[in-house]
């Protein structure tokens, strides 16, 4: 019972945050990017939050959407060499890579 009542409150709670999270940074309030919030959360463990790497792995916050998608597509096809992205990128569908590129670059 309690949960159902809470559900109504949550709807409001989520949306209070909406203005601050309008541009795809992972908030559930960001309706268009529901799944991409989770998809890009797979990348931050190596590339840093927002693509700003804290260590030896490359930062990816400087790439625009086309560059990002191009890199991912080339890793997937094998046209671009790497130590690990050539194993990771094939794990995503082309549509998922598109969603990831959009979420990470905010467009």
């Amino acid at each position: 019972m309690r949960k159902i009542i809470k559900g109504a409150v949550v709807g409001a709670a989520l949306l209070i945050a909406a203005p601050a999270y309008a541009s795809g940074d992972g908030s559930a309030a960001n309706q268009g990017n529901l799944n991409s919030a989770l998809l890009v959360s797979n990348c931050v463990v190596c590339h840093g939050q927002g693509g700003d790497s804290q260590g030896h792995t490359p930062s990816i916050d400087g790439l625009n959407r086309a560059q990002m998608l191009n890199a991912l597509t080339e890793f997937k096809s094998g046209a671009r060499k790497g130590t690990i992205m050539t194993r990771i990128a094939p794990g995503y569908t082309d549509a998922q890579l598109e969603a990831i590129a959009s979420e990470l670059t905010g467009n």
Partner: protein
Amino acid sequence: MSNNKLNKTSRRDFLKIAGATGAVSAFAISGCAMGPSGTGPRVVVVGGGFGGSTAARYVKKFAPDYRVTLIEPKTSYVTCPFSNPYLGGLVDLKTITHGYGGLSKAGVHVVHDMVTGLDAANGTISLSSGKTVEYDRLIVSPGIDFKWGMGYDEAASLISPHAWQGGSQTVLLKKQLEAMDDGGTVIIAPPGNPFRCPPGPYERASMIAHYLKAHKPRSKVLILDRKDKFSKQGAFMEGWKKNYTNIEWVKATDAGTITSVDAGARTISTEMDTHKAAVLNFIPNQKAGKIAHTMGLTGGGDWCPVDQITFESSVIPGVHVIGDAAVVSGMPKSGNAANSEAKVCAWAVVQLLSGASEVEPAVTSNTCYSLVTPDYGISVTAVWKATPEKYVSQGGGVSPADQSDGFRKQEAEYAHGWYANITHDIWG
């Protein structure tokens, strides 16, 4: 995508009540200075390790108004990841120690206390301080406990450490390696499946061999296994062949069943032989962390069965279990997996508390880097799609064989990069 529809409805509702909610929210924040900030549902997380800390942070990230509380007895957390490079002398203790300030800053209410029990009917947990905490959904990530036996118990682990939990155990093992005379044998006895960090014992062998090669060149590492094969075996073996003459791996069939362990004498006996170690690192078989058993989340088994899509316990509704303690079919028990499961679970918890009747299965991933030498790294990675039965691999694999020194060096550097970024994602 029923979630979308639901949330769209919520948005309209919100617009109607926005003014009123604003006032409530201001009141609630000033009125609860000692509790979690926000006015939304209460999500309580047990355990501030890889899984729990990530879950707390990501619930707050996905739903900033939720009241999120993290309960963890320790005020700082020493990671197991990179504890092997610590044994090898590559990083210091400070590098692998993390505080909870970052989580507080992210809006998580961090309580340093020990959880002692669950009252699921009333939606509360009890703490060792005597306090009771109410939750709307509970996320439990208590890590592992050991199946003591064969003469090896907790008291024995203070003499010959397993070092399979971070902190004092790891430090003790390092001190013993430093104190041992040259010419001795370090025995590592890896556990049987399933256990935390499948490549861990073999990275440990590598890092100890690296230390011995430089400081105690007449000493060696003997791995007495309880398995006949292990994670990234080909890649480890290739790396050992190239870099070490002081590692010997004996598979279970050849080693024989281990019958007793004497931590004081530093001996380990099998049905065939007794081996004497200068430093003994016996790693016991494992089960879910103690509190998971106390709470009844294991359903009488060793680990906690969960819904593979939401991580909700198959035994107790409203309680989710993630990380090493959970049965997640297809995924290894790793820190990266715990981090990934936490994100998927945080998402599911927010969806469920928003009234969603169904949660879309996630696509998630894991990578385990291991250092063979400071300049020789290997990895195994996977991308999975959740299904009700298990996590189905969509891609990934182990580092390819026969690569250049440059390739291995790059992977070693990226291993450090992974560590820096995942710990920043969790505790930064």
